[in-house]
């Protein structure tokens, strides 16, 4: 378990608070919520899971800006006011890119259902990611790619590049088409801003 949803910016854009030390028995390591990690968010037990991708990370520190003198040094605060330290959290942005039905049927694109506040966010294992991207005929699909690019974020192309890189590992027989898409995105991300055409 990575954390829980603490906020949403839109129907598909959520903010997840990563479990900190002491909140759960085994808090996630930074590699678990890395940029481009696929996560699942249960909507309800009967229906389905929302599938999202971590597209941003924000470190929240309430102490930032408090430059005045402290009554207690941080080492004492850990002993006397542990709650205060717990307010330093890591937030990750999640963009929802599809759904996975209980029977394993994936749907790419904007899901009709929204997640609930405090919904748990879990990292998807490789098999689940593979299942989410596999078409009925066994080929790979990333139908949410236009959705990611439409985010308008400067990181969107890099996010998609990262996802495609992961998919090339998960689908070693499908690298030809993925390679064409990766090259196109790499060109747009790397050469396009420098004035490269098309």
């Amino acid at each position, binding site marked *: 378990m990575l954390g829980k949803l603490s906020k949403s910016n839109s129907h598909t854009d959520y903010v997840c608070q990563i479990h900190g030390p002491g909140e759960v028995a085994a808090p996630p390591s930074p590699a678990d919520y890395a940029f481009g990690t696929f996560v699942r968010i249960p909507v309800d037990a009967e229906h389905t899971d929302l599938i999202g991708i971590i597209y941003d990370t924000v470190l929240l520190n309430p102490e930032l800006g408090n430059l005045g003198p402290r009554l207690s040094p941080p080492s004492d605060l850990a002993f006397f006011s542990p709650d205060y330290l717990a307010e330093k959290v890591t937030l990750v942005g999640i963009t929802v890119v599809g759904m996975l039905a209980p029977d394993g049927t994936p749907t790419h694109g904007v899901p009709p259902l929204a997640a609930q506040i405090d919904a748990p966010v879990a990292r998807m294992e490789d098999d689940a990611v593979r299942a989410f991207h596999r078409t009925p005929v066994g080929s790979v*699909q990333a139908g949410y*790619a236009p959705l990611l690019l439409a985010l308008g974020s400067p990181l969107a192309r890099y996010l998609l590049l990262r996802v495609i890189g992961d998919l090339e590992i998960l689908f070693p027989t499908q690298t030809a*088409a993925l390679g*064409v*898409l990766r090259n196109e995105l790499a060109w747009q991300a790397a050469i396009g801003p420098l004035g490269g055409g*098309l």
Partner: protein
Amino acid sequence: MTMPTPLGITRGPGESPHEYTLITPDRSETARVGEFVTYTARIAGETCQVLGRITGRQPVRLLPHGFLANPEVPPEDVAALVGYTGQAHDLFEITVTILGYYDSVLGDFINPRLPPRPGTPIYLADNDLLARVLSKRALKQTGAAHIGSLLSREEGRVPIAIDLRAVTSTHLAVIASTGAGKSYLAGVLVEELMHPRNRAAVLIIDPHGEYGTLVQMAHHPAFTSNTDGYHPTINIIRPNDVKVCISTLTLGDLRYLLPDLSERMHYVLGRAYGLVRRKYGDRWTLAQFRLAVTEAEREIDGKKGADEEPSGSEDAGSSGTAGALIWRINSRLESSRIFNDFTSLPLPDLFQPGQCTVLQLNEVDQREQQVVVATLLRRLLQARMNTEKNLVGEGDDTYLPYPAFVLIEEAHNFAPASADLVSSQILKTILSEGRKFGVAVGLISQRPGKLDADVLSQCMTQFILRIVNPIDQNRVAESVESVGRDLLKELPALSKGQAIIAGAGVNTPVLCRVRKRITDHGAEDVDAPAHWLEWFTKGRVEQQSRDQALLAEYTRGKRKLHKS
């Protein structure tokens, strides 16, 4: 009866008032440039089918170039990868030029001056509709010449028949690069002219001897009438049989024929010509003309002597003028197998309804060809004028009581843009006045750029086959006003046997696939490699080496043969 599926939906008006655009997925790939489409409109309370021709086709939905980066990966696979699973993604914007609705009373298209509303469904025009409205004449009607079928449809589905009445009154031109099939098309045209339903009086000026195979028409069942037993007569006149009576030559002809005339020679020639015509009228001989030359010079000298005192040197020069002129006349006319004193090709032998005369001018000097054609056309026009004005009657040499059609191959040699030849003048006269007297010409040229622009522009029906040369394309664009720019763009892309037919003979310019000829084509290229190979298969090399071998010499005593 099921309703046909629309080709596409009108998007809006085009750049000009008589254009509109439509959007179509064109899954059946029928929206080709030159294809005809139609929509239904209410005009003056009646439902009309408004015909239009596709003049442009632009894809409006393209895959990103990057998707095409790997030739081994279909771009559709990449599109499917990012979630596009639509089967046919192509969409095209088609530009259509409105021709109008066909008015059977006027026999022409009337432009509604109103493009279709956006959203109007556009259909591919029906074959039957096109067959009815593109050609001025029905296929088997008198005056119809079946040239082929509409190129954008299956062969034979939409026959194209030109109106011979329009062609034989307003002339035609066949223009094409070498090897594009102009002689073949001309052959088809002649076949139609000689068909039992038309029975034309046709003369073909054939500088290359390509039309000899038309003789097959004489006994071919396709050209035989079941009702009255008509079959065409084919009269092939070989180069040796081409005769022109010297007295039919004009002063211009003589000046053109005789080489390198000085100013004085021109003057003497003019005087002599006037003299011989005053003395002998329209019938004079070469000997009489020579005498007239001598007499003319004497007259000039006498007049000069009376006016002024000639110097000795001038006198000596002038005395040689007649001799030099006569020498030129003899070298050009006396030794010619064409020009003679008494015989010309009789017009009634050349022109008869139901007769195709092929005047073969191969092996004839080009200047002589031009004069032969000029005299013939001049006589033809004069005969028709005299007949129409009732100046001559039956039995006269110049009585020709029916229209005539003359097809001229290599027309740029007879009316070039760069020079004003004897044949240019009479051609221009016929092109401008011939329709009044039923004299029509068909000009065939592979170099429209070299053809006189006035001549080309007065041929009101045009058959244009493949033209690659930009100069020739420009000349066609300048001179042929009835063909739109959109069709002219097709010229380099036409294949052999495909032609644009435009002008008075059809209701609207069409891309046509020329039909197969019934007779054989007589202008096949020489298969040089086959002939070269044949040389070796007949043992000719051995024979040649035997023939060219050096003679063996027998040396006495040594009893040995050796080559010297």
